[in-house]
């Protein structure tokens, strides 16, 4: 039996202090988050749906969006594979300097994105600057920790007995990985990847310098929106922003729904 009980009625009753705390929080969050985001949506539709659609999907905006989605998808896939591998090595392997590598994984979370972009320019310089490769590399850098950090704790929890049992039943290492370990890691890989994808789609700081912002080539949606804003096309920027917001919201809500369904099916199993 678990010590964390979720029997109904285990929570203290709703008092005035609760309501006050919740009210204040909601008010603050509204002023900072909800109202501004609503303003973006309102602005983008200020001239009706037709103009919204036109500015959200001009040829240039469409090209930027397609490149954004493809590059995010590619980066998410690479991050999922190599992130899982990295987590595996960090949990199961032992080598000198492991602790340092483990710390370094968090560097992209700590390093300002603009610095990250500059860093990649410094290294790969003219060879890749202002190409699609530069954008990919920048996105890879900023999304690196997501999958590693979501898989690592799960891998630590999986006890080796399960793998030993599979081995004793005649499963090869590859089979054990595919049929025993991977299904256990899948939820963590998926939720880490979803967050990484959302981050990649909206990423700005690290790509603004390295992409060179070449329309129909290296321009991503966030930079496109930024440029529209700079040239005073606020409604155009808002339209693209709405598209990006819809993508983020879909990922966030989808992930939550999926997580809930997943934990419920696990509980009833």
């Amino acid at each position, binding site marked *: *039996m678990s*010590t964390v009980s979720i029997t*109904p*009625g285990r929570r*203290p*009753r709703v008092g005035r202090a609760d309501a006050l705390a919740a009210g204040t929080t909601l008010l603050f969050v509204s002023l900072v988050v909800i109202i501004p985001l609503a303003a973006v949506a309102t602005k983008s539709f200020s001239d009706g749906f037709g103009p919204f659609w036109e500015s959200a999907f001009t040829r240039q905006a469409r090209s930027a969006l397609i490149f954004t989605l493809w590059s995010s998808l590619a980066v998410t896939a690479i991050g999922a594979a190599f992130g899982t591998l990295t987590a595996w090595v960090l949990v199961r392997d032992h080598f000198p300097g492991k602790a340092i590598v483990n710390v370094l994984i968090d560097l992209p979370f700590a390093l300002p994105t603009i610095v990250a972009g500059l860093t990649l320019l410094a290294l790969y310089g003219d060879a890749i600057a202002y190409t699609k490769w530069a954008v990919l590399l920048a996105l890879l850098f900023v999304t690196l920790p997501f999958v590693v950090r979501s898989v690592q704790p799960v891998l630590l929890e999986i006890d080796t007995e399960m793998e030993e049992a599979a081995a004793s039943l005649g499963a090869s290492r590859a089979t054990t990985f595919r049929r025993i370990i991977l299904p256990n890691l899948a939820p963590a890989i998926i939720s880490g990847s979803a967050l990484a994808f959302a981050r990649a789609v909206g990423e700005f700081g690290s790509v603004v310098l390295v992409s060179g912002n070449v329309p129909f080539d290296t321009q991503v949606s966030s930079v496109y929106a930024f440029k529209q804003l700079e040239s005073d096309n606020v409604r155009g920027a808002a339209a693209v922003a709405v598209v990006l917001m819809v993508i983020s919201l879909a990922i966030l809500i989808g992930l939550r729904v999926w997580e809930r369904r997943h934990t419920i099916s696990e509980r009833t199993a």
Partner: protein
Amino acid sequence: MIRVDSLSKRFGDFVALGDVSLHVPAGSLTALLGPSGSGKSTLLRTIAGLETPDGGTVHLDGTDVTNVAPQDRGVGFVFQHYAAFKHMNVRDNVAFGLTIRKRPKDEIRDTVDRLLDVVGLTGFQTRYPSQLSGGQRQRMALARALAIEPKVLLLDEPFGALDRNVRTELRTWLRRLHDEVHVTTVLVTHDQEEAMDLADQIVLLNHGSIEQEGSPTELYDTPASDFVMGFLGPVVELDGGLVRPHDVAIALTADHDTTEAQVVRVVHLGFEVRIELELAGGSPLTVQLTRAQAARLELEAGQIVFVRVPEVATFAAGGI
């Protein structure tokens, strides 16, 4: 003294308590017994103020506390999983209630030391909960609850998370403690043996209402329903009635009130000997005998015997 009147509580569609009334005399040790989901924990938590009832009242020492916050009820509450303050050592845990009341330091120290002596944790003052065994943590939690000199002591399955041996030991110890301290105590348990061992009064709950209350012997000997009888000890069915296996007598010769049966198996369990029988109709029957009784009968498998039930011991109800 605790008085509960027509208490009711629902969680959604689930009725945790349906119109429960109860009186717990001052200085007694009362056990709330019942299967899980019977409402016993909800009742205890409502007395403590951790749960707000949908209807009904709770009186402590004659004062209506139904709308009083748990902080101000003066109850000591002990949780199944100890609820030890993990970041405080044993002394600070036990002292907590006194510290927040800003009692003088000397008084706090003396009280804590005295209580740790009572619960047998002298010398553990500077240990942290993580360095204690489950039994020790629970004794610490008990000392912590007693430190505020509560009007009533409420224990929610206090030994539920412990090993069998530790459980038995703590039980004996709690009974002795209660005899010394005499604080009105209510204990929630699903273990009938624990309830019978500890309590002056047992309140048996089922589906959110009280099935029966009384002394352990009253409940055991004169159960109000077949549920009560079945919950308090093993029962077997004979002649359409329920009976305790140790109340069935075995004779080697037939009489006007006996039923014929065949011995299937004789199991020696030390002091007790269990006889597995098959009645004429084919239904099984288990009978408990003492060693001496079994030795006198010299039973063996295949033998035909005659069983008889004393009138007073049956509970004539339609099965369990």
